């Protein structure tokens, strides 16, 4: 897969989170549940000072690598994130170097294929924070930018 290397500024995000594991049979349900909660329980609508209307799927606080437990956060980037809706968390996407991938296609299939291929790649990953940034709400022709945290040289 083609990627660029970009330096990102720190981002503050507000959203809903849960802990899971890629080997867990519950993983799909846990992540799917967060997305439903985010949109259906007025979480998205309640977030103040949204920087844009792009949803983020964030994978952070890895216990070790992609085989271990991690926290998934479904969120939006928000300004000061002072008053937040009930049941939400405030997280920080750390500044630093990221590999940026652009994927296009059916939202579920393209994202699943992406992670399958990423696990085959030998990137110097930090396993601190990775995230998906959804550019539109078209489910069949979704454009998603995925940022994978990279170690500084």
């Amino acid at each position, binding site marked *: *897969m*083609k*990627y*660029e*290397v*970009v*330096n990102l500024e720190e981002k503050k995000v507000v959203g809903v989170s849960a802990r899971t594991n890629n080997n867990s049979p519950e993983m799909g349900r846990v992540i799917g549940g967060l997305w439903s909660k985010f949109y259906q329980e007025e979480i998205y609508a309640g977030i103040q000072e949204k920087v844009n209307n792009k949803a983020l799927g964030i994978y952070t606080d890895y216990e070790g690598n992609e085989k271990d437990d991690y926290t998934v956060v479904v969120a939006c980037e928000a300004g000061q994130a002072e008053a937040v809706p009930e049941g939400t968390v405030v997280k920080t996407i750390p500044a630093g170097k990221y*590999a940026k991938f652009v*994927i*296009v*296609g059916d939202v579920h299939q393209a994202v699943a294929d992406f992670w399958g291929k990423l696990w085959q*790649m030998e990137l110097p990953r930090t396993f601190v924070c990775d995230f998906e940034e959804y550019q539109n709400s078209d489910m069949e022709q979704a454009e998603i930018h995925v940022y994978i945290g990279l170690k500084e040289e």
Partner: protein
Amino acid sequence: MGKMDYKKVYKDLYMPKTKPAVIEVPEMTFIMVDGKGNPNTSQEYKEAMEVLYGLSWSIKMSKMSGMKPEGYFEYVMPPLEGLWWTQGEPFDGIHVKDKDKFLWTAMIRQPEFVTQEVFEQAKETFAKKKPNVDTSKARLVFWAEGLCMQVMHLGSYDDEPVTIQKLEAFVSESGYVCDISDDRQHHEIYLNNPDKTAPEHLKTVIRHPIRKKK
């Protein structure tokens, strides 16, 4: 030490035979520019060439600027390459109907010492020399193309379909299937400058992504 010439050092990548062969293409660094339209006539393609060659040349000449990148070595600029597809349907290189409908990525490989910082520096240098050329479409991209089948095409670009059909026949005979997708496209490497070479003497590497047949 002599100049690094990628075409000569990596003969497996750049000098295939006229008989198709399987290759695993490792990660490389490219400057890429995406665009659309007929490469023979569109202004967009012309501008892409100007940006690609301009930035590649700035990087090659960066040794003269007092901003020599860490790890710099002398090299021959690698050849122009192109990825080709069409909107909505995967392009197999065979059924060429309307060249105006082409979507493409034009690209030139860069030496291993080229980082995002070296690339940004080259953009600045180039912008000073040619302030009217827009470099915003150029990206520095890392890409491991992976498992492919490739062949050398001799002659005019318009005669490629016959070579591609031969390539595709080899793909299926060897137990593979063509794996063209949004990320892995029909790929050509141009070993000559078509403005300076007679069509019958053109050499072009044609590469298709493949995967094992299940």
